Structures are given as C-alpha cells and as structure tokens.
C-alpha cells in the first residue's frame, strides 16, 4: 500500500497548492491576488517535474495497479496543458470587482472575491484526472471522476457574471449527476456480476468468465452502463446534449478547460474499464476485440458521435458552439482507438489526447484573447478580418483549425493518422472510412476559422473587437500554435512515451492473451 502512496505525491503536492491558492486568494494585497496564476503554474510545473521521478521499476511492480505506467504520461500531459489553461484564465475572474477595488469604489471584501476559489477548483479538477490514472478500484475511480467534474460545475458558474453561465452550470450539474448515477449503477452491476471492485481482480474474473464461454450478462449490462455514464465526461453521443449549451455559457478559458480536462479523465477511465474486459479472449476463433455487445455499442456511439458532432458544428454561427460540437466529433475519433484496443489503439488515444489538448486549446486561446466592451466574443463573424489588426492571432487560429481538420503536416494529422492506423490494424475499415468522410465534413466548418481571420475583410462589427488587456491568453495561443507546428517533428518520441504507459501488469490468473495478428475479425457489428 505504501508503494501506491508514492504515486500520489504529485496529487498531494498539488493539494498543498490548492490550500495555498485558496488562502492567497483572500489576501488583502492586490499583488498577492494577482500572483495566483503564477502560483498555480509553479505547482503544476512542480508536479510535472516530480511525476517522472517517481516511476521506478520497483514501485511500479509493487503498486498493484492495472496500468501502472498510465499515470506518468497522463499526469505530465494534464500538468503541461494545465499551465496553458492557467494562462487563459489570467484576469478572467473578478475582473469588474478588481477594477472597482483598485479605483477605490468598493472596499476589499473576502466574501466577494472568487479568484482564489476559481484556481483552487481548477487545480482540484486536475488532481481528479491524476487520481483517475491511479485508480485500482471502482470506488476510487468513481471518486476521482467526480473530483474531476464537481469543481468544473462551479468554475462554469463563476466564470463570468452572466445568467448564461449560471444556466450552463445548472444544466451541467444536473446532467452530470445523472451520468454519475448511471455509471455508479453500472459499477454496482459489475460488482454484482463479479464480486470484485478491484480492477486487477475484475480483469481476472472477466478473463475466467471469457474462457468459460462468455461474460456474465449482468456484467455486460453493467459495462455498457458504465461506458455510457463515463462517456458523458467525453461528450459522446448520446450523452452529449449538454456540450453545446455549457460550452457556450461558460467563459472561453473555462470552455477550453471543459473540452480537455474532463475529456481526458473520461478517456483514461474508459481505457481502464475496457482493459478489465480486454480486447482478447472473447472469440473462440482467436480473433481479438471487445465482447460483441460492447463493441456494437461503442461502434454505434463512435459513428454517431463523429457524424452528429460534425453536422452539428456545420450548422453553427457561434464560434464557441462550433468548437463545442467539434469537440464532440473529436471524442468520436478517440472512441476509434478504444474500439481498436492494443497494441496500438490505446496509445493512439493517449497520443490523440495530447494533440487534441494542444490544438483545441490553441483555438480557444485565440477566442479567449479577444473581447468587445468587456464581453467575450462568440460569433464567427467577430473573427472576420482579424489579420488586419492581429496578424499573429489570425495565423494561430488558422494553424489550430488546420490541425483540427487533421491536415498534414500539422499535429492533428499525426494524431489522426495514428488513430486511423490503429483502427485499420484492428480491422475496422468501415469505421475508418466513416471517420475519413467525417474529417472531410469537418473541413467545411474549420475552413471558416481559417478563412474568416485570414481572408475576409473586416466588418464594422468585427472592428469593435479588441484584444483583452492581459497578454497571457495571447501568449498561450502563440505557444500552442507553435506546438501544433513543431510537435509533429517529435511525434516519434511522443509516440514512444504514449506506448510505454499502456503496458498492463501480468495477469495473475490464467493467461488469455491471443495472437494479435489475426486479420479475420468483425469489421462491423
């Protein structure tokens, strides 16, 4: 047990950060309150540095986790993207209040300042994702997932002083509670079907069941409910309904956070849950793949998610809603990797999360960099002719959109290519063709994000858009845009990093691994 604690050091370190930040946020001195984002960054960078140091061979084997190395990659990933997301949030919270305090119109009131709380919740949610990677039983997994989600409800509500944000938060909260109930019920069924809550033991029981002629029906129902519930975090159809409204209602920096952090938590949780079932041993003929029922469910979800996400995005006139639907579509691509499974699928998911985190944050960072009369910009038309006044931002937006299309040689292409290869490798040709057609559909609307800032002329409406007074969102946009261009050059080493982490611990019960290179397997349900 003590060995497991070693892996919690980054979380503990960040939790110290949460306390520091929430106390600092109550400081009377404006300087301290303004330093909050910097403190958050320091803690995140600290966690980033600590994490790889902890993963020694001996601790890994002693920890008894299902995928002991998973945390190394995911924790470093969320910390790195977290730093970028922190930059976006600079100057977002309490903007009017701070302005009137420094003008002397209002006195400092610890009840009314929210900045400390915001950044504490921000870090708590990131801690949640990190804990998901360490989860080795269903209870822990549930708590970690909820720790990821609960702070985000509040972050949405306090992100901007508008009714929309509060409406979004309430919607998000109720639907989130429903999804939590759903996967909790799924967990209960899993426990009922197997008598275990530890993931490693679940895997052994499932392996025994599969070898004895198939999984328990109750377990199948439980798994599907679990998958559905968790897919809420990833905004997968049919659990996607909240996405557009919530993403639109929250302030852009929070939207960027929602589009990445809970999604990563969901994807990692799904990796863990599906790994207990395994991608082998369910078919007598030696073919590998998930159990047929789960495969069918995931296959349909993937197709619907890609297609509805892209078509939904096509119909939008608001940039934020469009990116919301596009993030739904990207969840669909991620599902391909989950369907494909080892040897490439899970790594492809992790690699895609990195690519998606960088490019999607880049797009939101550009949106978050601008405002009109203190209100953030939403509609696509506001971006028209951005190049005339902010050429660098326009290029950053174009790069982010090009990468989201999956256009070579940008980062998104490398991610998508890996996912597609993984899908093809597992024999899901039809799925890949559908994904390819979807990429083509997505080019339709992403081209607006390229065309409007770079090609269109300014309109009277778009000329009233100005950069936010803080420079950090723009820095974040530039950094991520450069990442979109540069990171493909290091795709090899990033891939290697993602591959190292999905290694499962040896099974203790009977060995159920099947030769992976069998071409005959169901291509569609």
């Amino acid at each position, binding site marked *: 047990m003590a060995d497991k604690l070693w892996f919690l050091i980054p979380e503990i370190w960040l939790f110290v950060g949460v306390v520091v930040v929430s106390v600092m946020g109550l400081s009377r001195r404006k300087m301290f309150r303004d330093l909050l984002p910097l403190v958050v960054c320091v803690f995140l960078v600290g966690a980033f540095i600590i994490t790889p140091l902890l993963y020694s061979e001996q601790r890994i084997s002693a920890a008894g986790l299902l995928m002991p190395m998973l945390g190394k990659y995911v924790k470093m990933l969320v910390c790195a993207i977290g730093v970028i997301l922190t930059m976006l949030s600079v100057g977002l919270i309490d903007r009017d209040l701070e302005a009137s305090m420094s003008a002397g119109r209002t006195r400092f009131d610890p009840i009314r300042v929210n900045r400390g709380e915001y950044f504490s919740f921000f870090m708590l949610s990131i801690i949640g994702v990190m804990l998901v990677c360490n989860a080795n039983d269903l209870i822990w997994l549930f708590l970690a997932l909820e720790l990821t989600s609960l702070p985000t409800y509040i972050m949405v509500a306090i992100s901007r002083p508008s009714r929309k944000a509060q409406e979004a938060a309430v919607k998000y909260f109720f639907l989130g509670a429903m999804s939590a109930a759903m996967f909790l019920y799924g967990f209960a069924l899993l426990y009922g079907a197997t008598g275990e809550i530890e993931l490693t033991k679940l895997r052994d029981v499932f392996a025994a069941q599969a070898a004895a002629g198939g999984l328990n029906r109750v377990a199948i129902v439980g798994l599907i409910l679990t998958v559905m519930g968790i897919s809420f975090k990833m905004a997968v159809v049919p659990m996607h309904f909240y996405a557009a409204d919530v993403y639109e209602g929250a302030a852009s920096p929070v939207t960027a956070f929602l589009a990445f952090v809970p999604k990563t938590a969901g994807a990692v949780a799904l990796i863990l849950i599906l790994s207990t079932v395994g991608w082998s041993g369910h078919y007598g003929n030696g073919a590998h793949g998930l159990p047929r029922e789960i495969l069918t469910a995931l296959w349909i979800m993937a197709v619907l998610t890609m297609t509805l996400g892209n078509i939904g995005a096509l119909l939008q006139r608001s940039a934020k809603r469009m990116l919301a639907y596009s993030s739904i579509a990207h969840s669909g691509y991620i599902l391909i990797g989950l369907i494909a499974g080892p040897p490439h699928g899970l790594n492809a998911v992790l690699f895609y999360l990195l690519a998606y985190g960088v490019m999607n944050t880049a797009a939101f960072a550009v949106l978050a960099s601008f405002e009109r009369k203190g209100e953030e910009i939403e509609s696509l038309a506001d971006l028209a002719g951005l190049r005339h006044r902010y050429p660098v931002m326009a290029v950053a937006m174009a790069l982010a959109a*090009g990468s989201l*299309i999956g*256009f*070579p*040689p940008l980062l998104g*292409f*490398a991610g998508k*290519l*890996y996912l*597609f*290869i993984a899908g*093809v*490798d597992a024999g899901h*040709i039809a799925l*890949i*063709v559908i994904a*390819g*057609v979807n*990429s*083509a559909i997505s*080019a*339709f609307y992403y*081209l607006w994000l390229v*065309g409007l800032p*770079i*090609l269109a002329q300014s309109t009277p409406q778009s000329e009233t858009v100005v950069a936010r007074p803080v420079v950090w969102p723009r820095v974040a946009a530039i950094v991520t845009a450069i990442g979109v261009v540069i990171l493909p050059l290091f*795709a*090899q080493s990033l*891939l*290697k990093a993602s*591959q190292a982490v999905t290694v499962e611990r040896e099974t203790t019960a009977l060995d159920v691994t099947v030769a992976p*290179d069998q*071409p005959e397997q169901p291509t569609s349900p």
Partner: protein
Amino acid sequence: MSLVPLMILPLLGAIGVAVFPGRRAKWIALGVSTATFLYSVVLAMAFDHWHDGGFAFASDPPVGWLDEFGITLNMGADSVSMFLVLLTTLLMPLCIWGSFTAIRERIKEYFAWMLGIEAAMIGVFIARDLIFFYVCFEFTLIPMYFLIAIWGSTNRAKACIKFFLFTFTGSMVALAGFLYIAWQHAALPGGEWTFDIARLTTFAATGLSATEQAWVLLALMTGFAVKVPLFPVHTWLPLAHTEAPTAGSVILAAVLLKLGTYGLFRFVLPMVPEAVVEYAPVIAVISIIGILYAGLICWVQEDIKRLIAYSSVSHLGFCVLGLFALNPLGVQGSVLYMINHGLSTGALFFLVGMIYERYHTREMSKLGGLAKRMPVWAFFMVFFVLASVGLPGLNGFISEFLCLIGAFTASADNAAYPGVLGPWYAAAAALGMIIAAMYLLIMTGKVVFGPLKEPAATNNSHGAKLPADLTFREIGVLVPLAVLCLYIGFQPKPLTDALEGPITQVLAVYPETVRQHLAENAPAIDELDRVILTMTETDSDRNKGADDG
C-alpha cells in the same frame, strides 16, 4: 547528390520571403526558384537511370519519422519523377517572373506561398514513402487555397472552398485505401508495418485478392480522379481555374492536375493490376465522356480562361485513356502528355493572363483582332493553341497520337501487350481531337484575328504601365515554353526512350494479367456462341425440314 535541397531550397526561400522586406520578395522568390531549377538540371545531368527505369538519389540511410509504423521521409527519383520535377522547377521561376506586375497586394505572402507549393509539388514526385507522398499531396492544397482565396477574382470564395473540399474528401478516401494496403502487408505472417512504396507495390499486386483490389482501386480512384479531374468530379476545376490568379492557374493546370495522373501511374497501375484490368473499360469510358463532354462545353464558353480550363478536363481524359490502354505506347503517350499539357496549357494561361492584365476582361465578345494591336502576343497565342490542338511538329501531337494508338491497339489480339480497350475507344476519343481543334481555333479566330475590338480605356488602368504588346519580361516567360514545345515536337525520341524503363516495369505484370482475365471471360462468350450456334442450327434444321416438307 541528394534530392533534399529540391524541397529545402524553396522552403527556406518561403521563410526568407516572409522575413525580408516586401520590395525584395519577388526577387528573392525568383532567385530561389531559379536556383532550384538549376539544381534540378544538375541532378538530371547526374541522373544515371535514364534508360533502365531505376531509382536514383535514394535517401541513404532511410530517414525515419514514425519508426513504429515504418513511416519514413525517403526520397528517390526515376525518369518519370525526374521529368515531372524538371517541369515543376522550370515552371515555377516562370510563374514567379510572370506575376511581377499582376500581384499588387500582400506581395510577401504571395511569393511565400508560391515557393511553398513548389516544395510540396516536388515532394509528391520524389516521395518514396506513402505517408510522405500523402502529406505532400495534401499540402499542395493549402498554398493553392490561399492563392485562389486572396489573389483570385470575384467569385474566389466559392472557388477556393469547392477546390479544397473536393480534393480533401477525395484524398481522405485514398488514404483509407493506402492504409488498407499497409495493414494487409502488416497482417501477413511475419509482416511489419511499412509505407515504403516499392515494398507495398510489390505486395499489393500479388497479395490482395481480386475483391480487395477492386475496393482499393475504388478508394484510390476517388482520390486521384478528383485531382485529375475525371468526368463526374471535375466541377471544381473550371471554377478554381477561372478564379485563380494567372500563376495559380498555370500551376494548377501544369502541375497540380498531374499529381492525379502521376498517382494513377505510380500507385493504381502497379498496385492493383487485376482490378485495373477488370475496370479499365469503365474508366476508359469515363475518360472518353470527359473528353467529349468537356470539349462540347468548351465550344460554348464565352470566357477564354474558362474555355482553357475545360479544355484541360478534356485533354486529361486522353492522358487517363492512354494509361489504361495498359501498353507501352499508351502509357508513354500519357506520361508525355503530362509534360506537354503542362507546357502548352501553362503557356495558354499565361497568355490569357497577359490579356486580362491589359483589358480586365476575358470575354471573347469584348475582344477581337488583337493581332493588330499585339502581334507578338498573337504569334505566341497561335503557336500554343496549335501545340494544344495537336499540330504535328509541335509537342501536343505526339503525346495525343501515342495515347490514341495505345488505346487503339489495346485489344485482345495484341500479342505483346493485350489490352481490354480497342479501336472503338480510340475512335470515340479521336472525336475529341476534332472538337478540340474546333473550339480552340474558333476562339483564336475570334480573339486574334478579325476586326480589332477592345474594351475602351481599360488598358493600363491597373497602373502597371504595360505597353500595348508584350514586354521583354513577358516574352521571356513564354520563350522557354515555346522552345520546349518545338523541341519535343521534333525530337520526342529522347523522352520516350527515357520513359521506357519505368513504364516497362509498371506494365510488367499486365500482359499476363490481361491474358488471364480474357481467358476467364472467354468461356462465357463461348457459351453464348454455342447457344447462338445451336439456335441457328435448330433454325436451319427446321428450315431444312420445311424445305423437305
């Protein structure tokens, strides 16, 4: 010698153009593209596989990108690649020089994109890795998208989006086809992931079943047919051509369309021979429809540029027809066509651009008798129209003729290279030559000869201070193209000889495959014959009976 500088030079040039002040941009771009051209000439001289069809300048050691899947950045060139690279590097300085006065805004960006597209196009021709090929193939879209979208004419927004979406959709499907081949290769016992073109080609030709080949053919054709473009998916081209700036149209016609036919030559023919034999008649019919249909559309065009754009659709139909003749004559004609079409149609777009710069119109009804005002221009116009029509002695003739001869002799009774087409296909396509002569000559007659007609007071309103006739610079752009047209027209032998090696390799499997295909389908014909025979016999028996009675 290495092929890397061919891509690095233009890329560095593009960065240089973007960094240095705007006034120098065009000169830097011209210098860099000329240097690239000179380098490619030096490479051509050092190239020692002109006759055996081998690959030279291979990356050694291989440059990896994603080792996990055997994705590399390997390069290499055979004589087909060399010719197309030379065509590209020759045209780029001309395009850049040709747009010195036409481009008045966002100059730096323009020349940066020009150099960017040069690097990508060269990359397509020298890639020896499928993914590398695909990356370059796709990347050509981006500069072209911006060239049309920023410097195009009035309807540019629609044109660039249509262009992008058509091509992008097509190539996504082609990518799926490529991945399928690579996966099948990896799924072999002891197989591994690789995207090496040579290995996958060898594998696909023998390792895939007929059904698989048919699907792969469909996927690859979807990608390349859009780019060529073939008949039902050609609609993006007239729009893109008409709206693009002059140099953009030249690049589009001369090189970008060739990416499609090059893809057919490099991948479709050698990778899926069985399916090609099975479906060659279908593809040939589609190309012939394209030849005739686009030709008829040309006939009724009022806009000169749009006319030449449609003529590209028609001409590339010949090119595809020649490829699917599956014999050396046809394929030689087809590859030669890629080069010739680049020279003559490229030049025609330049000529139209020169008129547009002076008169700001491309309407045939508003122009006429320009030979009186611009004798030098008129000379070149007539020259390139004749080259494009296929006048013997100029370059167009030889390639068109070879394509048709190829299709004509591609019948079952050809001993060396039996084919699945035949005289009827050639006859139908030859109608296209007649139509081409009509529309191009009618256009020339209207615009170049007859009473002088020019839009009033538009000359030089652009501020470009262009003289009535061509300037030294404009003549300089046209002369190299004209000289090459003439040279190839009189001396095609060195080119066809050099093309023989790679073409023989590509066609190596075909005679056997075609014979098998014919043998498999022969019994069905025999069956029919026998039925007819029995029927006639019964008839004659009955008649005999009647006679007896």
